[in-house]
C-alpha cells in the first residue's frame, strides 16, 4: 500500500514538474509548480514522517512564495505570446544535455555505498516532531538561526530600495537601455 502510494506520488510529481517547464502560459506554470509542491509535501508528511517540514513547505512555498510569483505575473500581464520562441535545435540540445546530466548522476550513484548509521542526535521519538526539531534548532543551530534573521532584514531593505520609484535613476536607465 505504502509502496504503491510512493510510486504514484513520485510519478505525479514528475509529471507536474515537466508541465511547469513545458507549458507555454506562465500562469499555468505557476499553478503546476504549486501542485508539485503539494505532492512533495505529501511525500514529507505521509512517507518520511517529517510532518512539520511538510506543513512549513505548504505554508511557505505553496502559500507565500508562489503567491508572490503569481502577483508579479499578474502585474506584468504576460501571456503565452509574450515569450519569443527559442529555436527547436536549441531545445533539443538542452534536453539532451539535461538527459546526459541525469545519466551522469545515476551512473555515479550506482556505486554509492550507503551505510545506515544513526546521526549525532539520538532520540527515541519521531525526528520530524516539532519538539525534537525545536530542541535542535534552538541549541545546536542557534547562531545560524540568528544569522538567518539578519539575512531577512537585508533582503527586506534590498527589495524596498529596488522597488522604490526613483525618478532620477529611472531616466538614466532609460537612456542607457534605449
Amino acid at each position: 500500500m505504502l509502496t504503491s502510494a510512493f510510486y504514484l506520488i513520485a510519478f505525479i510529481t514528475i509529471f507536474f514538474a515537466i508541465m511547469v517547464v513545458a507549458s507555454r502560459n506562465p500562469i499555468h506554470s505557476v499553478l503546476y509548480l504549486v501542485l508539485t509542491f503539494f505532492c512533495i509535501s505529501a511525500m514529507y508528511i505521509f512517507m518520511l514522517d517529517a510532518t512539520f517540514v511538510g506543513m512549513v513547505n505548504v505554508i511557505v512555498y505553496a502559500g507565500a512564495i508562489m503567491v508572490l510569483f503569481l502577483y508579479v505575473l499578474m502585474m506584468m500581464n504576460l501571456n503565452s505570446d509574450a515569450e519569443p520562441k527559442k529555436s527547436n535545435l536549441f531545445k533539443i540540445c538542452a534536453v539532451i544535455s539535461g538527459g546526459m546530466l541525469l545519466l551522469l548522476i545515476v551512473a555515479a550513484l550506482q556505486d554509492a555505498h550507503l551505510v545506515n548509521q544513526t546521526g549525532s542526535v539520538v532520540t527515541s521519538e519521531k525526528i520530524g516532531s516539532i519538539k525534537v526539531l525545536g530542541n535542535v534548532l534552538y541549541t545546536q543551530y542557534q547562531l545560524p538561526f540568528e544569522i538567518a534573521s539578519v539575512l531577512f532584514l537585508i533582503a527586506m531593505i534590498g527589495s524596498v530600495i529596488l522597488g522604490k520609484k526613483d525618478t532620477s535613476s529611472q531616466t538614466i536607465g532609460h537612456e542607457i537601455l534605449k
Partner: protein
Amino acid sequence: MAEIFKLVPVEHFVYLCSVLFVIGVVGVLTRRNAIIIFMSVELMLNAVNLLLVSFSAYHHDPAGQIFVFFIMAVAAAEVAVGLAIITMIYRNTHSVDIDQMSRLKH
C-alpha cells in the same frame, strides 16, 4: 529509520530527486522568460530539500530537516530580491526576456 525504507529503497528517493533536479536544469536552459527560470531554480531547491529530508529520515538525524528550514529561508529572501530586480527590469524595458538583458554588457 522510517518504515518506508523497509518497503522502498532509499536509492529510489535519490533517483526521484535527481529527475526533479534535471527537470529544473532543463527548464533553466530552455525557457527565456526570467520568471519561469526563477521557478525552475525553485524546483531544483525543492529537489534538494526532498533529498535532505529523506536522508534525515534514513539516518534518523534531525539535522537534515534543520538544513531544509535554512534553505527555505534563503529561498524566500532570494525570491523577494530577485522578483524586485525582475520588476525593475520590466519597468525599464517592458519585457522579461533574458536575451534582452545581454544589453547590460555594452
